[in-house]
C-alpha cells in the first residue's frame, strides 16, 4: 500500500468498527438481545478485516515514484558532517 492508501485503510478500519459497534449495541438494546449485538459486531469485524487488511488496488492509487538508479547517482547523498562514513563513489556530472 502507498501512504495515502495506508491512511485510508486505517481511517476506514476505525470508522467501520465504531459504526458496527454502535449499530450493534443499539439494535441489541432495542431488541433486548445481547446475542444480536455480538453477532452484528462480529459480522462488522469480519467485513472490516476483509476490506482494510488485504492490499486492494484502491489503496495503491498514489504510488511513490522511485528514481531510476542511473538518475539517482547524479545526485549524491548528503555527507555526514562529523566523521566521514564509508567512502562514497565520486559523483558524475
Amino acid at each position, binding site marked *: 500500500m502507498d501512504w495515502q492508501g495506508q491512511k485510508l485503510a486505517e481511517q476506514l*478500519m476505525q470508522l467501520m468498527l465504531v459504526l458496527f459497534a454502535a449499530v450493534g449495541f443499539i439494535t441489541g438494546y432495542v431488541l433486548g438481545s445481547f446475542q444480536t449485538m455480538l453477532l452484528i459486531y462480529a459480522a462488522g469485524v469480519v467485513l472490516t478485516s476483509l476490506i482494510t487488511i488485504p492490499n486492494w488496488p484502491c489503496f495503491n492509487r498514489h504510488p511513490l515514484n522511485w528514481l531510476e538508479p542511473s538518475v539517482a547517482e547524479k545526485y549524491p547523498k548528503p555527507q555526514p558532517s562529523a566523521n566521514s562514513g564509508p567512502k562514497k563513489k565520486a559523483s558524475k556530472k
Partner: protein
Amino acid sequence: MHSFGYRANALLTFSITILAVICGIASFSDNFNSPSPAAQVQVLNINWFQKKPDGDDEVSLTLNISANLESLFTWNTKQVFVFLAAEYETPKNSLNQVSLWDGIIPSKEHSKFWIHTTNKYRFVDQGSSLRGKDFNLTLHWHVMPKTGKMFADNIVMSGYSLPKAYR
C-alpha cells in the same frame, strides 16, 4: 499500516478494545432498570423440631414459596440466583442467617414461580435457642449478568415463629 500483519494487529486490538467498551456500556445500562419483584412465603407445616445429640436445635419445615421476579431480568441477564434465608437473633449471635432453599432461574419465562417443598438445607441452630423463636424469612437474589456488574437485593418477610416445645 504498511504490511498485512501490521494492519491485522491494529484491527485485532482495536476491535477488542471496542468490544470491552460496548460490554461496559451494556453493563451500565442495567442501572436504568428499576425492578419491582414480589414474593410470599407460607410455612405450611413444622414437620419435626428436635434437639440433636450434639446439643443444637434442628427444625424441618414445609414451605410454600411463590415469587414474581420478572422485572429483575434485563437484556444483559444470564440468570438469577435466588435463596431463602431464615433470620433470627439469639443470645449467642446478634444475627443468624440460615439458608433454607435456593434455586437458579435461567430466564424470564421461569421467573414467576410457585414451589412447595421441605427445606432444602437443614435449619440448625448454633445452640439450643429455637424454641418459641420469632424469625424473618428473607428472599435474597443475585442478578448475574452476561457481562459486568452483579446486582443483589432482598425482600424481608417477617412474622414467622417456631413452636415453644419440641415435636
